[in-house]
């Protein structure tokens, strides 16, 4: 039994009906379909927080899972949970996106970041909190997503971010403080 399946059973995750056919379609990557079922929301949420753009997050999540699917056989559960692994991939995908966005803005000579984020950040989030969330830097939103939203522990989050645990904790507390102040 894979970790994904174990966790799915433990949490009582009921996969969507489309997922029933997935293992058959995915062949020997059957475990991957279970990981998708369990981790898609988490990865998507993480990317929404990181990019501040829901449509971009959707594309990036798809790209993340595509990359994960290609390298699924190389995934080693002993080195970390599927969530940490996926977040690491999503982090790299998002970095590339940020870089291309920066190039695009430079090309278009448009520096107003707010113009890119026109959608509602998260459905149902109180206005002041959403505004405060917008005002955080992507790095701060990222650590909030990992530690609060995805409930990753310190070592896993710091591994995803590529920074030390201390830096991760500092960044998180600073972000939460700013959110509390403005919310």
């Amino acid at each position, binding site marked *: 039994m894979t970790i994904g399946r174990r966790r799915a059973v433990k949490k009582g995750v009921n996969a969507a009906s489309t997922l029933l056919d997935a293992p058959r379609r995915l062949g020997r990557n059957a475990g991957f*379909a279970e990981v998708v079922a369990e981790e898609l929301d988490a990865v*998507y949420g993480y990317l929404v927080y990181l990019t501040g753009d829901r449509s971009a997050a959707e594309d990036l*999540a798809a790209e993340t899972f595509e990359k994960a699917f290609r390298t699924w056989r190389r995934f080693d559960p002993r080195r970390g949970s599927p969530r940490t692994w996926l977040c690491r991939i999503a982090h790299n995908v998002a970095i590339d996106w940020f870089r291309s966005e920066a190039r695009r803005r430079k090309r278009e000579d448009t520096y107003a970041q707010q113009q890119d984020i026109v959608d509602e950040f998260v*459905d149902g*989030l109180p206005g002041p909190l959403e505004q405060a969330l917008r005002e955080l*830097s992507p790095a701060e939103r990222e650590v909030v997503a990992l530690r*609060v*939203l995805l409930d990753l522990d310190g070592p896993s989050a710091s591994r995803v971010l590529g920074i030390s645990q201390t830096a991760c904790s500092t960044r998180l507390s600073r972000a939460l403080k700013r959110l509390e102040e403005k*919310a």
Partner: protein
Amino acid sequence: MSVEAVLRAHAPQAPESLRARVLELEPRRMPSRRLVLVLAVALVAAVAAAVVHGLVSSGPAPQQVVRGFAPHVELAPSVKSPAVPSVSAGGSVGAATTRLQQYEASLELRVKDVPNATTRATRIAAALGGYAQSVQYSSSSKSAYLVLRVPVPDVKTAIARLTALGTIVSQNLSVTDLEHDLQVESTQIAQLRRTIAALEAALRNPSLPDAQRVILQIRLANAKRALNERLNARTGTIAAGQTARISVELGTKHAVVPPAHRPGRLGRIVHSAVGFLGLEAAIALYALIALSPLALVAALFWSLREARRRRDDRLVME
């Protein structure tokens, strides 16, 4: 309600369109598997090339030389000459009576007393009407190397007597047909004699101009010198066919080198294939050494690029 609780309560949910999109992913062949496949094919090709090389280069076993003391060994008549005689146990040679042939034998014997055996070997040759062409004796290595010449009809007797001096370690016997060489030399001699006779007849003409006479005299001298050389060569050929050359190596138990094992066809194939594989490995190693500086530069470039990328990542996220 804390900020964390609010954020968790309003966690973004992936739209169904995204879920369907992700589940539409089709399995792709892993690049690493392609690499493994390519490497496997390369390895198989290398081994196949080595085996083919081994098969081609090993060839059939040479049979001109009889090595060792088989109970009854016969040389195939077609190996060196249509008239190569049979060689049987004890070095017996059924010498051909009609053709001139050169016999060469080599013996390696283990004896207890090398000086005594050396003396006896030279006496055996002398008793049969032959002689010792050369004798090399080394007291330090307790070994001796003799080259004996004995009349061809007595080769059988000579080998039988020599092998009785000690224990045989190895024995080789080869027979080379000299008939063709003799015929060539005889033809050349006859041609030269005709040329000389014609030149002498021309020189007897009193009306021959002086300049042409000198030229003919030079040609006559050259022809006579060539005839002399050919006659000597033919004498040597006939002598070689009349006396057999027997080289004898004598040594004590420790001095004598054990006979080299001659591997079979399969052994030679394997040996040749392994040698070829070694050559391939050497070439690969050479290529690796030649390319290693480039690889080092590439690795350095890659690490610098990675460092820069990490720095850019930090900047872009701030």
